[in-house]
């Protein structure tokens, strides 16, 4: 019920934005900033890149929000824009790397000290540590499915990949997570 309430609040805000309300837009940005930033962070692997990608995405959203017919589609639309901006950033980065050479992959998160002597307090913390070791794109997939509640077709639209690819990547991501947890447990 809390999710339904949050969705309805977002829809009211989107409608307010379409009426031109600055306050509605400000509230919408504040509500979605953290979630979209985390998604950008997972895809780009860097804090500064995530902030840049998100800023570009918000500017695109400010431009296009007036044309969004279905306010309920805002989450999917917002994630799609962020994913596309992140993909653009990755393309530029690959082009730079072709010239200047590869950089270190930063998609794994620095976390608190995960040493064996420091045992996780509960299953959630164990999962959290395992998630930090997962590549960013797989973390993004798991987040879109389990945290945001998007189905396979919606994730395919957001990331611009076929639905079959989403299914297999989700399966591999969960499998990889289980392997990491098993290794940590030993």
């Amino acid at each position, binding site marked *: 019920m809390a999710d339904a309430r949050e969705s309805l609040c977002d829809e009211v805000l989107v409608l307010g934005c379409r009426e031109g309300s600055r306050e509605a837009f400000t509230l919408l940005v504040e509500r979605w900033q*953290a979630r979209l930033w985390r998604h950008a962070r997972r895809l780009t692997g860097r804090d500064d890149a995530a902030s840049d990608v998100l800023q570009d995405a918000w500017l695109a959203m400010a431009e296009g929000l007036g044309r969004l017919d279905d306010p309920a589609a805002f989450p999917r639309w917002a994630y799609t824009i962020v994913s596309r901006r992140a993909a653009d950033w990755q393309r530029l980065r690959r082009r730079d790397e072709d010239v200047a050479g590869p950089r270190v992959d930063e998609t794994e998160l620095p976390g608190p000290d995960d040493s064996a002597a420091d045992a996780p307090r509960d299953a959630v913390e164990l999962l*959290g540590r395992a998630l930090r070791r997962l590549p960013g794109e797989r973390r993004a997939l798991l*987040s879109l499915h389990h945290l945001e509640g998007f189905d396979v077709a919606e994730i395919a639209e957001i990331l611009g990949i076929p639905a079959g690819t989403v299914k297999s990547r989700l399966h591999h991501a969960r499998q990889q997570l289980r392997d990491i947890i098993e290794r940590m447990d030993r």
Partner: protein
Amino acid sequence: MSEFGDLLKEALTGAETVPTDRGKQALEAAVAKFQRRERTVRWMAVIAVGFMSGLVIWAAVSFFRAPDDTPLRTSLLHVVAFLFGMSGIGFGKLWFAMMHDHLAVMKELKRMQLMLLDQVGTRS
């Protein structure tokens, strides 16, 4: 959702920490762009209405001030321009009113849904 899914959901929340300073900048830039866009759309609407109104006034004044020996074509041009301007203003107002009503009705429906949800939540 399965137990693993619930645990995963909890673990995914807050896995990354959002830097606050860049967040504020992004918010301000986005709000500024949003306001600029709204202002541009509003000004375009004002200019369009102004142009149509000017056209209507010019057509009417020209039609009635034209001398008696004015060619028929010229008179027809004034009439057509007048009708075009009036239609433009009319359709513009209609479009704006429809948009506004549609958004107002949708917002009201969503608010009622929220109220119902809150009431159901309070009772349970």
